[in-house]
């Protein structure tokens, strides 16, 4: 009997262990991005922009061209790449400190310009890499190493809802918030990431996916507890859902889309 392989490592995901903590959501999100790279056949033309944050070393995990960026500047780097060579497929992968705090200016302006870039935004409600300090997405009352009494909305403001914010820009073709705490949600997250890829492939605009993701180490919880915390606490503060989809409309109007049509000599 011929055996058919039904599950395996995506080709664009490198073999070997990652440095992520057991139970961290980055690993699952990496896999979903790699599946999308494989699905759309982007190995030969993709460039991944790594942030400063826990995922800075994604260049060791993806078998595509990659570049490091300064904290918060991934979308400026991505803009430069895409403008210089529009035939590249450019994606950024950023944490909440990177994208929604220090890099907020770049995030907003890149969205407003409608750069044809795919953004995978990992919201884990803390600064993972630097030891669990408050993030712009830390929940009200959540204790972190810089909010020992819990985040006070009176003095530190409320968590920033990026997927909703991004939906407000004409340049964004797709914006969805997903989570990766169980299989059903992982499948939905994969769908959303595919759509964010298609936003760029069809030149419709920026594709944005916010992924709610557990940081077991800084939440000081077991993987199971951290997943439950994402499902209950985070999803209450950050409702899952699709906030913008002009991509579908764009696809109807422009089918069949021709990619790389505005390429110039560089």
């Amino acid at each position, binding site marked *: 009997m011929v055996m058919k392989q039904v599950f395996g490592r995506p080709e664009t995901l490198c073999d070997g262990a990652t440095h992520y903590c057991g139970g961290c959501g980055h690993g699952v999100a990496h896999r979903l991005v790699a599946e999308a790279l494989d699905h759309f056949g982007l*190995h*030969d*033309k*993709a*460039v991944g*922009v*790594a942030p400063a944050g826990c995922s*800075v*070393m994604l*260049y060791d995990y*993806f*078998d*595509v*061209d*990659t*570049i*490091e*960026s*300064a904290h918060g*500047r991934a979308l*400026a*780097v*991505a*803009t*430069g*790449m*895409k*403008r*210089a*060579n529009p035939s*590249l*497929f450019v994606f950024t992968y950023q944490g909440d400190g990177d994208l929604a705090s220090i890099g907020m*200016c*770049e995030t907003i*302006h890149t969205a407003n310009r409608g750069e044809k870039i795919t953004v995978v935004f990992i919201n884990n409600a803390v600064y993972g890499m630097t030891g669990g300090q408050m993030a712009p997405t830390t929940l009200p009352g959540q204790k972190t190493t810089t909010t020992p009494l819990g985040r006070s909305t009176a003095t530190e403001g409320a968590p920033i809802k990026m997927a909703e914010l991004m939906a407000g820009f004409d340049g964004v073709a797709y914006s969805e918030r997903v989570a990766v705490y169980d299989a059903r949600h992982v499948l939905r997250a994969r769908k959303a990431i595919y759509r964010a890829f298609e936003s760029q492939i069809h030149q419709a605009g920026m594709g944005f996916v916010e992924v709610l993701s557990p940081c077991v180490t800084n939440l000081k919880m077991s993987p199971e507890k951290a997943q439950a915390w994402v499902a209950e606490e985070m999803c209450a503060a950050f409702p899952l859902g699709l906030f913008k989809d002009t991509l579908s409309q764009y696809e109807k109007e422009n089918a069949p889309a021709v990619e790389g049509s505005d390429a*110039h*000599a*560089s």
Partner: protein
Amino acid sequence: MSPSNHGAAARPGTRKLVQGNIALAEGAVRAGLNCYFGYPITPQNQIPEYLSWRLPETGGVFLQAESELASINMVLGAAATGARVMTSSSGPGISLMQEGISFLAGSQIPCLIVDVMRCGPGLGGIKPTQADYYQATRGGGHGDYRTIVLAPFSAQEMFDFPMRAFDLAEHYRNPVLILSDAILGQLKEPAVLEPAGIPRPLPNTWALTGAHNRPARNLRSMYLSGDDQEIHNNVLWEKYNRIEQELPEAEQIETDDADILIVAFGSAARIALSAIRLAREEGLRVGLFRPVTLYPYPGKALRELTSRVNRVLVVEMNMGQMLDDVRLAVTDEVRIHFYGRPGGGVPTPHDILAKIKEC
């Protein structure tokens, strides 16, 4: 050479009256510029304004960024694809770019950065200065790195230096900075706007173009495992050592019979040339040593020259920054005098003449 020619007369071709900033922008286009990213700031605005229409004519990309933080990182991304890329700015904007310049140096990504210096500190003002010499020549951002620094002193050199800058940037895989100032940016004088050669971007083996028929590539400055960071930094320093051997350049004017030597770069060197003319009318034999590369500093040539001319007057539009490099270059026997003006002040030829007489 006559101080009024500033390099243009010797060149074949038609001389045109041109503003320094425009000469630089057109020089960059003729050097094969593919992309420009920048944010407005006086006194360099003519560069982005000119490139906003001129660069698209050649198929290039012009983008006004939301800040200098964004523009330098757009430069990094675009240059990482192998394109010829530049930005330009002044004082506060160049300060904002320093983290990005450090990343460019650390990741060995070639590009051109133009600093049309204005006076500081702080918001300062739009008057000329040379007060950002330290920032330009000592790296400027965090970490032990250098950018190659070219110091033009005429509209002709503003036109010519972008081509040299891109060639050097690609050859050494390093950012190159053209250190100009408000005088050089705003002045209008004749220059030949024909490049000496055609742009020849180096074929490269490192750019991010998609992993088609080759292993995936990565550009980074961070090396976490073992001794890798130190190994990487040693690679950078081997390169800087080569640069220090191969690149230093200075122009010597009327030094053959000189008893007194003025050391000055950029605008200060132009004013010094007028002072030298006045001095020679009075029978004082004064010559000029003008560094063209500020990093690497042409210290060896200066040491040789000062073994013969041992009275030196350093003139700068700052309070003594290049002075350090002069002190490092020459022997203890050389008597060094200094005349500097802090940001906002521009010396006159007569100011300098008075200092010459004190030497």
